[in-house]
């Protein structure tokens, strides 16, 4: 019971006050006590106490959590529901020997190669061609698969390892991440464009791998660790001249910056190196704001109304909210409009969108409506997972807004 024993004091600190009821979207939209931080925590505690044997319903309660972290910021007792859920997922993995979802994955997904492709796509993995062959299916459980972008060639294969500039002021290590590598390669190019326009030499190691977040979220710490180790070693040993490790995916950045420390907490000999790495990690908007953006070359010919969605990992993970908004407003003729509940989860939440699609879809529908209410032409955000989810929701609702990464908007302004 090691994993749960480690978090037992926190489990026991939840005094069932219900403060997380408004925070937790999965509760708001289902009204089910199994789908709120309080309920999840009480269930985990029951398992820790030996009063409940994990079963399918328990797994559903644990797996349907968005890990959005809203409950953690709302809880007056400082209980972090998302972390407790992570512990429960880890516990499930250790108990069963296989990653939770693996069973349902096997049963529900392996049965269909199409869906398997979908699943891999979600993780930015392989199986690209499967998608293009899909007939008669536009939305898979609320996910807009027809418009799901696929990079013709991995971004990492499209660019050289070093992109030089004339008078380099900074040397930036670019951690690309699966989504930008396999799916939204255009956004990765945008990041490079913005960096080079601001006198940054960009270093893009070819042997970078997935940050390990998906595995970590579903309790597979072993794979997560091995990926993390490779990422750390690559950037620190082979490309030690990179001053920072920059990521334009809020989820990856928050994993690299915060979760790696937790992941290696039990390896004191390696931990100092992890710390060194974590200190180098910086998110795109945060970095651009820090080095000061070359504004004179930003152009924009037609007026544009833009709103911004705060990805969970950006607002609650990295706690970066002002910088992307400031960058957007630096672009000439951009009118910025704040949307209602900009900082609430978009509903993607890794595999939750595939396995608990009803609640996911409800969350996304709310978001889409909030976007519509701003009358914005464009939604900017900082997480590729959110970009895909939001664009899917918008298309499904028959709205017209385009979703772009902050870097995309800036890159475009540098081209204009």
């Amino acid at each position, binding site marked *: 019971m090691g994993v749960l024993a480690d978090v037992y004091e926190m489990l026991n600190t939840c005094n069932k006050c*219900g*403060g997380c*009821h*408004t925070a937790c979207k999965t509760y708001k939209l289902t009204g*089910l006590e199994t789908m709120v931080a309080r*309920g999840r925590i*009480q269930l985990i505690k029951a398992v820790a106490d030996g009063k409940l044997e994990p079963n399918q*319903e*328990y797994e559903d309660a644990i797996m349907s959590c968005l890990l959005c972290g809203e409950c953690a910021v709302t809880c*007056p007792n400082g209980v972090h529901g998302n972390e407790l859920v992570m512990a429960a997922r880890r516990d499930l993995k250790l108990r069963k020997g296989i990653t939770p979802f693996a069973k349902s994955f096997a049963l529900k997904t392996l049965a269909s190669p199409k869906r398997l492709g979908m699943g891999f796509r979600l993780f930015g993995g392989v199986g690209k061609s499967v998608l293009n062959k899909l007939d008669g299916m536009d939305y898979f459980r609320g996910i807009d698969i027809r418009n799901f972008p696929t990079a013709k060639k991995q971004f990492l294969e499209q660019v050289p390892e070093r992109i030089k500039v004339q008078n380099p002021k900074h040397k930036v290590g670019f951690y690309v991440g699966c989504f930008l590598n396999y799916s939204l390669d255009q956004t990765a190019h945008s990041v490079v464009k913005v960096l080079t326009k601001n006198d940054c030499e960009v270093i893009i190691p070819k042997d970078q791998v997935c940050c390990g977040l998906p595995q970590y979220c579903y309790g597979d710490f072993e794979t997560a660790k091995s990926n993390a180790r490779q990422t750390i070693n690559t950037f620190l040993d082979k490309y030690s001249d990179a001053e920072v490790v920059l990521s334009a995916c809020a989820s990856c950045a928050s994993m690299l910056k915060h979760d790696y420390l937790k992941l290696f907490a039990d390896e004191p000999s390696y931990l100092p190196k992890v710390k060194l790495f974590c200190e180098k990690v910086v998110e795109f908007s945060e970095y651009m704001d820090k080095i000061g953006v070359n504004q004179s070359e930003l152009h924009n010919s037609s007026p544009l109304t833009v709103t911004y969605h705060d990805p969970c990992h950006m607002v609650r993970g990295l706690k970066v909210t002002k910088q992307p908004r400031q960058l957007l407003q630096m672009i000439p003729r951009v009118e910025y409009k704040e949307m209602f509940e900009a900082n609430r989860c978009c509903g993607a939440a890794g595999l939750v969108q595939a396995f608990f699609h009803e609640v996911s879809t409800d969350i996304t529908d709310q978001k889409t409506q909030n976007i519509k209410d701003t009358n914005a032409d464009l939604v900017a955000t900082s997480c590729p997972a959110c970009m895909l989810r939001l664009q899917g929701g918008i298309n499904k609702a028959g709205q017209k807004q385009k979703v772009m990464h902050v870097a995309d908007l800036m890159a475009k302004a540098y081209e204009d």
Partner: protein
Amino acid sequence: MLSQTVVKRLKEIVGEKNVVTDKVGLLTYGYDGTLLSGEALGVVSPTTTDQVVEIVKLMNEHDIKLVPRGAGTNESGGTIPSQEAIVISFTKMTKIHEIDTENFVAVVEPGVINFDLQVELAKQNFYFPPDPSSFKASTIGGNLGECSGGPKCFKYGVTRDYMLGLEVVLPNGKVIQTGGRNFQSEPGYDLTRIIVGSEGILGLVTKVFVRILPIPRAKKTMLALYDKVEDASQTVADIVAAGIIPTTLELMDNLLINTTEDFTHAGLPRDAGAVLIIEVDGYPEDMDEQVKTIGEIASKIAKEFKVAQTAVEVDQIWTSRRSAFGSVARVRPSYGVNDITVPRSNFPKAIGGVLKVAKDFGVTIGVVAHAGDGNLHPLILFDQRNKEETETVHKAEQALCMMALDLEGTISGEHGIGLVKKKYLDKEFTPAAMEAFRKIKRSFDPTNRFNPGKIIDL
């Protein structure tokens, strides 16, 4: 276990998704804001009055009891189920039928969350005065079930004062409507007032006519800081004696200042013995005068008195106050909330009494109080896993109740009796009064079907 037939019928009535019978589901409907828990036979979430009626009839046929539940945040064990009952959860009856600003009435379903109603009302510049600190989670049905109070109650009264009428499903499955949208009292008994605060033992409320008010044009929020909690209680008595009625007069002691600071970082001084949060509202032109008078009274004893200057400051102060209950698990994992209430003029004596109980029993007590109402929530902090300590806490709680009764007060101001305070009820009421309660319960619910075992044993 529920029989297959009952489960099947329930699913026919409310739909497959709205019936829970698995262990995991049952576990999550077995607790509330207290340390108690239980396990029901099932959980059913109706979405219409007709469904509620059908459920009640079905349960009558099969001799199964019903425990009504809103958000399950009550502090009295009022929703703890047992193996003879199903939980009827109102969290899916969340429609706001109507907001009628001309007649100051809103018509809502019982599962509407207090906060959600406030948000809708605010769009039309109105509000619903009862605002328990749990308002972001608790439902209108639960608020009326417990007759909840809140920080605004000093001036505006409690939930009862805002209930114009109810639609109620009785234990025999018949539907009645009490009161209505009119402000004048209806002919006959005031059934609304009997149902409000009855903790779900008399009827299931399926529709609520609530009184709403326009948002006051102006308000001012003040803070008075004290070295000792006794000093703060004196200011409370002085303000009341001067005939001033602020909207809010809330007190938090040093322990609560610190636990809430850990959460909110609102900047309350951690070394202060106590803080009073004072708020006045009304017309803009009256504000300065009221603030001045209160400032003069408070400054006689307070070590510092200040008026919040910005909306952000006001917000932070309120977040602190509202998270008070919630935040104490930072100190010890378990807490017992007491809800004693004394006549306002006895408030300083009650504070003295709480300090004495803490000392006599050697327990940690944090105090938060709706001081203006004489309503105190001494929170006894402990660890439920320690049996001996838990015993002492029970004794200390009893001492607090007795102390309140000695000061002509009551054992419960706003949290209700439920299971937790049941054993003290006959200390407050005479046998004749207790019998009157029983008679009322029996006349509504002769076979003890609704929320059995709560408030009184038959």
